């Protein structure tokens, strides 16, 4: 159960990241937006704002980050790598500015807020429930809803999507709003969990989450991917790390072995995938 709490934040971000990957882009700024939303909510609370209002404002700031990403990628037509890399720096820098570098401690925050980070309902941590609900809704919409179909079209063939009347700019705008909103949610849940907001929170989350989504079947070239797969990817990565710890692997070896296992897992997956395609072709 403690492992489930640990992966909840990455899992929530992975839902948004999968949608971004399907649309043919990705979002490198999620870790920074997560950090920024946590410290914004924390700083506002210390300035006397009600904690829930502070969270709402922090989510809005997350959405502003997403809006800027979406505008430059969808409307101006900039490359997602450069745009979100820029936002990664901006949001992380803003977090440093807000905190002046030192962590913000929310000692004595209302119990109701602490509850969403460290409470339990029917024995299950609330933060894990949040993650499951977000993942379930995401997975359902991804399979069934019309806007998500548009994301798939945009990602698999943008020109065709444009010619068939889909406003791909708007689709991308929506995608980056979603990734930023979910990252901001993860930041606020982490704040509730630790009751301390550090400006360094979420460093490196973007690459962990992208690799989890790719392990789960999303394609870096767009048009492919499922939320369920990404969630399983996040779980796999955490199980690998947890396994290395349980087996008492030296801390100096952990990254090396973890990286090697990742490479092997993706290769095996790709090879079996290819075999299936070949068989399918042979049959037809």
């Amino acid at each position: 159960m403690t492992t489930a709490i640990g992966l909840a934040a990455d899992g929530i971000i992975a839902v948004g990241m999968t949608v971004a990957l399907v649309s043919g882009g990705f979002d490198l700024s999620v870790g920074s937006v997560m950090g920024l939303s946590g410290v914004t909510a924390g700083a506002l609370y210390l300035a006397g704002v009600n904690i829930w209002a502070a969270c709402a404002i922090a989510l809005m700031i997350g959405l502003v980050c997403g809006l800027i990403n979406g505008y430059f990628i969808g409307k101006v037509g900039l490359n997602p790598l450069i745009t979100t890399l820029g936002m990664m720096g901006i949001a992380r820098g803003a977090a440093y500015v807000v905190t002046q570098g030192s962590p913000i401690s929310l000692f004595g925050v209302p119990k109701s807020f602490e509850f969403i980070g460290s409470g339990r309902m029917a024995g299950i941590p609330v933060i894990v429930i949040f993650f499951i609900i977000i993942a379930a809704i995401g997975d359902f919409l991804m399979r069934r809803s019309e806007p998500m179909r548009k994301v798939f079209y945009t990602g698999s063939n943008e020109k065709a999507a444009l010619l068939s009347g889909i406003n791909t700019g708007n689709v991308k705008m929506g995608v980056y709003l979603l990734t930023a909103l979910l990252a901001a949610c993860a930041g606020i849940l982490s704040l509730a969990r630790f009751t301390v907001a550090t400006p360094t929170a979420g460093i490196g989350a973007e690459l962990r989450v992208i690799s989890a989504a790719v392990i789960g079947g999303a394609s870096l070239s767009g048009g492919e991917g499922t939320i369920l797969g990404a969630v399983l990817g996040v779980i796999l990565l955490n199980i690998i790390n947890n396994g290395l710890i349980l087996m008492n692997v030296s801390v100096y070896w952990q990254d090396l072995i973890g990286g090697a296992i990742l490479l092997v897992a993706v290769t095996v997956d790709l090879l079996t995938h290819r075999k299936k395609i070949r068989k399918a072709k042979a049959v037809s």
Partner: protein
Amino acid sequence: MNRRQLAAGILSACACLSLSFTGCNREARQAAPGTQNPFVGSPNEEYYMVTFVSGIEYWKGCFKGFQAAGKLFGVTTIYTGAPQYDVNQQVTVLEQVIAKNPAGIAVTCMNPDALAAPIKKATAAGIPVVTFDADAPRGPRYSFLATGNEYAGSVAAKTLADLIGGRGEVIVITLPAQLNHEQRAAGFKKALQADYPDIKLVAVGNGKADQTEAAKVLAGYLQAHPDVKGVFCTDATSGVGAATAVREANRAGTIKIVSFDTDKGTLDAIKDGVISASIAQGTYTMGYWSMNFLFQVKHELVNPVEGWKSKGINPLPPYVDTGVNVVTKENVDSFYGI
């Protein structure tokens, strides 16, 4: 001679020095009334403190000590530094400070080699330089004032050992490949081996400078080693993560945590009892004695050997361990706002 004795020796030497000076001064006053007190500077004298990532809270304590000493001498103290973690930027800032020809510079070095050249330049221009917190051994600085990290680790070991009754399994969460953190972990390990044969260090984890990651890592180790009784975190962020992991494993109270540094989150957690103790670095001490050293060299008050300047003799102790204090629930209130 170990570091503690060295530090004690230096402090008593300083005390003797100042006593003898007050003695001289009294004689001087009797001999020629109106002669100036050697410990009075002028407000035109500017002493600079130069840091990197200059906005962080940690340096505030250092400058507070620097400022306090400057006030005693009646000189001007100025704080500046590179806002980012950027070597070029820090070298540029230091060069700009040197160009102003100040009375003295206390600098903490982001990179030991890159800062050596500008320090040489300052010394050549007759500006006394000391380093604090992080050194540039190849630069001709008069002294280096900092926390002895191995010693700090051994203090943490003693603190944790006392908390868990001298026996049981413990875990260290550190930041591998960062020298000061490795030294803290090494000092902790050595002290356990030397003095506490009944305590077993079962794992060393990577806190990754992120509370979410640190919590995840410690949660894993607690599964692997259910009998763990204590955790030492070599950085404050891991400390916060460890506190959360212990609470989520329903082990609050049964697992003792010793953390590092005194940011507000750590102090609040000590007050709350989630973290049992933290190791506070002597940041005020670094700044206070840096200013004292610079003033003494600038005013040529310290003369172990006649004409030391031309003979290449260092009049100051080359290294000062500024020591650590253990913060607990009893004394936590005095550490807020340092």
